[in-house]
């Protein structure tokens, strides 16, 4: 029987079949569902770590102790985890250790589209690139064998379309493995300079062995058809190439792409008249193939950025536009917005009414606080950057003698991820920044994952709740304001007090996300009294998708409204009232 699985679900199954025993991850689109789908497999301990560096270290520790382990993250997460990754490559592994990176070409849900294949090369580790769900499962099993055979961590590189596309999958027989017996091995696991000098040489030897493996890997295969055109491709781009090139095209399908099988590539190239290298994002393979003196066509025609699709590739290869019909109408953009009842709305509305404030934001739902009409953010860079970008700005303004009120804003999960070090930085180096945590008690943008502040683990166990108040206090903040953002007067007053506060202070803006299922939320309905409405449009400035104008008056969609009352509180004419349900 075949199963219709997403790449992420197939990876979860592959982890189970490979008898992985410990997994640690930080949620991030498009990788999140891998760990959410480990739930049925009781043999795998799996957790959300506070960040990707922690996840990678936890998984690596488990490998050292003798069980197979995995860490999973989105592409930018690997930037955070790069530190342990590069040294784990030197030391090698105990039982197999695989790091999954899910890249996001076209930035469907990301701040950049970095091509993480370069990490495999830079860290000198082997890499697999599945193209569909069946390969996600089978390559995961193989990745663990390679990790153990060559004593090295393996990078498992996916992309949004591989993670989120569904195709038919046949299951394999799950393995049942013995743990490797643990004994202290200081030469291997203490990365002192003396040991690292030795590991450095060993790593080059391992890469030579891996280059040989690459030549005969079951996932690097020639599909010989005609002798005219040959295509080398890997990952999701391979399926697109297969769709587009004519039937008599020969393919060299690469599933194992670092190190590349250069002998196989050379032999393949010699048997075709024209060689194409088709890859999404950077010319990762092409650069190396050309450096080996093999002539090929690649990024001179294939776009070097954004997600590839069959039409784009066909147009790139033929130079002809695909025929479409024009419709004489334009769609208005439908940007993502803060949900009706979102607790972030009250905070951003409050800041949107203030002049001369600078707000450094962060990655999460609250990034949407930067969109109109709230338009309350100056920057969003990376996880944890809310506090520290603000710090740098405050020091710059001090240097040039400008007085500004500066807020650093991030969410609860982001605070635990990498906000705490920023909070320390602000206090330690006497920054004039007000750190704000928007605590909605869940990791929301990625689809409701637990974190150290929620009281539950990924496996559903009750956990200690890590208190951000206690952390701020322990760091040395003298005043910690806690406020409900749905009470606009209180929110406004808190911001005033924090600005006036002469001592280091922090604000915790706290109300749970309305999408959290295990909490019973109060539900009500806000209704417009059309006689009282003076059409001033103030209610539209809160940016709620439930509030709009119809026939010149404010109107609230009863199907969307949950009765948070933020629009009601801003109405100067008391034209909005609340109906209890």
């Amino acid at each position, binding site marked *: 029987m075949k199963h219709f699985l997403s790449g992420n679900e197939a990876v979860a199954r592959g982890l189970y079949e490979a008898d992985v025993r410990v997994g640690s991850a930080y949620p991030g689109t*498009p990788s999140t569902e891998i760990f959410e789908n480990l739930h049925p497999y009781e043999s795998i301990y799996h957790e959300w770590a506070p960040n990707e560096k922690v996840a990678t270290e936890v998984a690596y520790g488990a490998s050292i102790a003798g069980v197979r382990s995995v860490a999973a993250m989105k592409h930018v997460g690997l930037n955070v985890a790069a530190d342990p990754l590069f040294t784990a490559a030197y030391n090698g592994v105990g039982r197999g250790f695989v790091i999954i990176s899910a890249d996001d070409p076209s930035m469907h849900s990301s701040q950049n589209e970095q091509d993480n294949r370069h990490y495999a090369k830079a860290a000198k580790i082997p890499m697999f690139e599945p193209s569909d769900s069946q390969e996600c499962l089978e390559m995961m099993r193989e990745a663990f064998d390679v990790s153990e055979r060559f004593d090295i961590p393996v990078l498992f590189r996916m992309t949004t379309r591989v993670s989120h596309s569904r*195709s038919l999958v046949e299951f394999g027989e799950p393995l049942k493995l013995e743990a490797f017996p643990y004994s202290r091995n200081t030469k291997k696991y203490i990365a002192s300079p003396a040991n690292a000098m030795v590991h450095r040489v060993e790593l080059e030897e391992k890469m030579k062995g891996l280059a040989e493996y690459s030549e005969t890997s079951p996932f690097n295969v020639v599909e010989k058809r005609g002798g005219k055109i040959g295509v080398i491709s890997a990952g999701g781009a391979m*399926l697109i190439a297969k769709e587009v090139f004519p039937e008599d095209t020969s393919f060299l399908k690469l599933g194992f792409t670092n190190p590349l099988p250069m002998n196989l590539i050379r032999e393949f190239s010699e048997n075709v008249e024209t060689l194409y290298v088709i890859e999404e994002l950077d010319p990762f393979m092409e650069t190396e193939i050309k450096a080996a003196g093999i002539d090929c066509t690649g990024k001179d025609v294939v776009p070097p950025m954004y997600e590839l699709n069959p039409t784009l590739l066909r147009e790139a290869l033929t130079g002809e536009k695909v025929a*479409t019909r024009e*419709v004489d*109408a334009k769609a208005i953009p439908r940007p*993502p917005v803060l949900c009706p009842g979102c607790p972030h709305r009250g905070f951003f509305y409050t800041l949107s009414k203030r002049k001369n404030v600078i707000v450094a934001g962060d990655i999460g739902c609250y990034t949407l606080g930067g969109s109109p*009409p709230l338009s309350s953010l100056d920057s969003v860079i990376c996880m944890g950057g809310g506090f520290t970008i603000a710090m740098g700005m405050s020091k710059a303004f001090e240097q040039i003698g400008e007085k500004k009120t500066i807020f650093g804003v991030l969410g609860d999960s982001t605070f635990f991820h990498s906000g705490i070090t920023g909070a320390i930085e602000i206090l330690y180096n006497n920054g004039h920044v007000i750190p704000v945590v928007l605590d909605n008690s869940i990791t929301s943008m990625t689809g409701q994952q637990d974190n150290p502040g929620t009281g539950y683990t990924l496996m559903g166990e009750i956990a200690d709740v890590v208190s951000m108040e206690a952390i701020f206090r322990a760091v040395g903040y003298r005043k910690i304001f806690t406020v409900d953002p749905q009470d606009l007067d209180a929110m406004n007053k808190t911001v005033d007090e924090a600005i006036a506060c002469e001592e280091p202070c922090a604000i915790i803006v706290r109300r749970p996300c309305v999408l959290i299922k295990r909490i019973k939320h109060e539900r009500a309905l806000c209704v417009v009294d059309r006689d009282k409405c003076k059409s001033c449009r103030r209610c*539209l400035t809160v940016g709620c998708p439930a509030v709009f*104008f119809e026939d010149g008056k404010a109107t609230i969609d009863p199907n969307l409204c949950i009765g948070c009352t933020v629009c009601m509180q801003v109405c100067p004419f008391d034209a909005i009232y609340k109906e209890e349900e």
Partner: protein
Amino acid sequence: MNNDVRTIVLAGVGGQGTILVSRVLTTALIDAGYDVKMSEIHGMAQRGGSVSTTVRYGKKVESPLVGKGAADILVAFEQMEAVRTTPVLKKDGIIVVNDYKIMPLPVASGAATYPDNYIEELSKAFHVIAFNAGQAAIELGNARVMNIILLGAMVEAFDMGNLDWDSALVKQVPTKFLDINRKAFELGRSMARKENA
């Protein structure tokens, strides 16, 4: 290559039930013995953004996604999403569109107005089957079955009636909602027949 592969695109706004439709659709196709691939973008779906799902089926499907000018049929759960997604259609593509509007924020905030000529303009370029599935669902007794009404209409418009849809509904719809979804499916088929006549 893959000339026998057909492509269906579902487009709507987060929360409109495109996921259930794609599940029923792919179940029926897999049960009929097709190779099936499906791709969806859902990162921001919960935040009221546009969502779209591509379903491809045939003897052997390679790419799970298509680009411009490649889909056989577009099922749009909302008027504006139909307009937004039409570039994906082949020149002789078919559109099943729900005569239904969800205001995007620029319209709600008064920065833009929602045009009222979308269906008219779509019909000038494509074969369009348009009806108000939202209203039909309310009349049937459950506003949420709008999605299955649209599925029924698609099955009729795209001549897919030979697949075992009832079995797919039984597998994917919770038992207590099965009856109304069966009715919704049949209603969608008859509405499409009427529109097509």
